[in-house]
């Protein structure tokens, strides 16, 4: 077991951690205050800076090989709050910075304040909330204290929900309301668990807690409540009901951020909970349940995706399925086994490659819907000839979802498959393979007619630069498939060995 | 003396709690608001009695806050529920 890093001393580069959170917070406040076009300018200005900070955190981490720590206010945990970054945090920070920037650049065409108007509703809201999603996700990835993380998921909820109903149609408002109720219930469950842990151990700091917790009823109940709450936010089957209407009806740039990043925020916290707070509590049974739910999500989500009439709904159901893969890492990251590192890398790779692929696909679908005025799959015949770049981006994203080489999705599934066979549990591998086949099925339903030679007339051709954004994201998902070994070593930084499961 | 204060607090709280039956039975929404009004007054009074008996600091500020806002529910009720276009005398709606 890796020695727990020193919980309570700021490390070199630690200041970057609070900067990564405070920068977009300042952006939010400045955007609301100055209003109108300034919100867009502030958001776009901060994005490269934020990306630079994320990269700098990754470099510091790579150099030291140890998690970065910053103690806020000089009060050491348990009294104060610490921020920590490990390998998983760092790659998520960089991914978030990239996808938020891509969505922002793509959205400039839709969410520009119209000329002649000082300020309009949807643009101002979008630019403020995009920065809010960014700030709260950075906090999710860096928070080292369970209550601080509660604040993070509250921020995330309040940032994400209004994005769903930005175009204020009745159906989007009811989708947003349903999302809000799921998310708030999730927050309450999470908070109940946090309170129980504090009541039992007198600290909320993740590293201190991981030393103190033992396998006893209060821990099981607290972990169960927190996991259930976070699953509702992650939309793991059968708590996925809110996701398809919310993600499919939101504006494309919002869908991309919601599907690629926001659901990953709560997934990240489930990983933190079981592998950061509770590594010393054996949890094979829980892992099995999570993986079983994940498997059900893969099969169920894929089958429903096969039946959708609308492109964006199909992509949303595909998210339900792809979230399932994330949970297949749980039973494989157990004990001091050889395959644990592989499974861990596989899980993270799935998180990253799905984020890029899904963002690319939602942006591409948004371009198709804008250019055609609809997104009925039946009527997409011939779209490949008129929007080749967009369809190429969509197809490359799909390639990664199916898990075909070379792509990040392939590498993720390959690592998880290898781990499941080495662990002697090929069942999870079998689920993965059938999920890949189903994904091929629902993507074929889109791609086959799209590539037909029918003539299709566009209402308006898409802007090249926006097509390029979608393509760049899709290419990143592919490029992840060429990740060198050093990248996987990086992902292991700060990973804590999990007790039990030495089969 | 403290026991006397506490007993009085208990009796008042119990009394106004019985008054809460009006929240249940109505028949009009005005009755419901009246019952909470009474509960508020009784709650503040018993708070004062308990504060005097136990000497916990800051309790008088709680009572002060509650007294300051005692009329809010009634005003909101008159503005929103008993507005001229809606009928408050329909009584307990148990559809």
């Amino acid at each position, binding site marked *: 077991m890796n020695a727990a890093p020193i919980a309570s001393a700021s490390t070199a580069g630690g200041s970057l951690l609070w900067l990564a959170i405070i920068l977009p917070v300042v952006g939010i406040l400045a955007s609301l205050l100055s209003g109108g076009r300034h919100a867009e300018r502030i958001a776009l200005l901060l994005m490269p800076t934020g990306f630079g900070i994320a990269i700098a955190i990754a470099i510091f981490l790579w150099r030291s090989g140890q998690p970065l720590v910053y103690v806020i206010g000089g009060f050491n945990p348990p009294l104060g709050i610490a921020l920590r970054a490990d390998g998983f945090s760092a790659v998520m920070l960089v991914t978030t910075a990239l996808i938020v920037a891509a969505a922002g650049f793509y959205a400039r065409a839709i969410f520009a304040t119209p000329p002649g108007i000082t300020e309009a509703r949807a643009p101002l809201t979008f630019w403020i909330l995009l920065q809010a999603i960014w700030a709260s996700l950075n906090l999710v990835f860096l928070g080292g204290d369970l209550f601080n993380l509660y604040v993070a998921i509250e921020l995330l909820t309040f940032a994400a929900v209004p994005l769903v109903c930005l175009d204020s149609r009745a159906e989007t408002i009811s989708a947003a309301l349903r999302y809000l109720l799921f998310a708030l219930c999730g927050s309450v469950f999470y908070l109940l668990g946090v309170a129980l842990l504090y009541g039992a151990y007198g600290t909320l700091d993740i590293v201190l807690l991981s030393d103190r917790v033992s396998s006893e009823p209060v821990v099981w109940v607290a972990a169960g409540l927190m996991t259930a709450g976070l699953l509702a936010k992650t939309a793991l089957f059968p708590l996925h009901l809110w996701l398809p209407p919310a993600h499919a009806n939101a504006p494309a740039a919002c869908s991309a951020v919601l599907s690629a990043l926001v659901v990953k925020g709560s997934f990240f916290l489930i990983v933190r909970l079981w592998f950061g707070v509770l590594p010393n509590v054996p949890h094979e049974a829980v892992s099995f349940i999570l993986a079983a739910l994940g498997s059900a999500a893969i099969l169920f989500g894929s089958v429903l995706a096969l039946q959708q009439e609308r492109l964006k709904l199909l992509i949303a159901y595909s998210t339900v399925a792809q979230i399932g893969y994330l949970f297949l890492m749980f039973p494989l990251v157990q004990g001091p086994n050889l395959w644990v590192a592989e499974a861990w890398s596989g899980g993270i790779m799935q998180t990253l490659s799905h984020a890029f692929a899904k963002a690319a696909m939602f942006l591409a679908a948004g371009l198709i819907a804008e250019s055609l005025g609809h997104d009925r799959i039946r009527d997409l015949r011939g779209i490949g000839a008129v929007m080749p770049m967009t369809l190429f981006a969509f197809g490359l994203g799909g390639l990664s979802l199916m898990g075909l080489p070379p792509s990040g999705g392939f590498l993720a599934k390959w690592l998880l498959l290898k781990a499941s066979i080495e662990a002697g549990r090929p069942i999870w591998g079998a689920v993965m393979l059938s999920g890949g086949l189903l994904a091929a099925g629902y993507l074929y339903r889109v791609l086959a007619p799209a590539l037909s030679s029918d003539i299709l007339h566009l209402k308006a051709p898409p802007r090249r630069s926006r097509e390029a954004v979608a393509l760049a994201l899709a290419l990143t998902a592919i490029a992840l498939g060429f990740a060198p070994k050093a990248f996987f070593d990086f992902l292991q930084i700060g990973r804590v060995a999990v007790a039990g499961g030495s089969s | *003396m403290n026991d*006397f*204060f506490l007993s*009085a607090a208990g*009796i*008042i709280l119990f*009394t*106004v709690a*019985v*008054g809460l*039956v*009006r929240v249940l039975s109505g028949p*009009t929404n*005005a*009755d419901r*608001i*009246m*019952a909470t*009004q*009474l509960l508020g*007054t*009784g709650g*503040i*009074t018993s708070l*004062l*009695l308990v504060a*005097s008996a136990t000497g916990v600091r800051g309790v*008088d*500020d709680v*009572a*002060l806050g509650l*007294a*300051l806002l*005692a*009329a809010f529910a*009634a*005003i909101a*009720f*008159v503005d929103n529920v*008993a507005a*001229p276009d809606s*009928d*408050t*005398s329909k009584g307990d709606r148990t559809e």
Partner: protein
Amino acid sequence: MNVLLDLFSVIAICFGTFFFLAGTAGLLRFPDALSRLHALTKADNLGVGLIVLGLLPHAGSLLAALKLVAIWALIQLAGATSAQLIARAIRRSG
């Protein structure tokens, strides 16, 4: 002196409590909404007033006594205005 003050407190608080009892009984037993409102205002006025009066000798400081009086005054104000408003609402709905 102390005994006298205590006696004063006991009597005032007993009467105050009685008005709460009476007010509640009225709220529960009176036949129509307006008379129930009338009963309610008795508890607000006299009940709280007498109990605050009874507690005054036990207030530790001038500020505490001032707060007690302020609480009583606020309840008066709230009671009077909300009774007005509720009564009007009752009459309007007939």
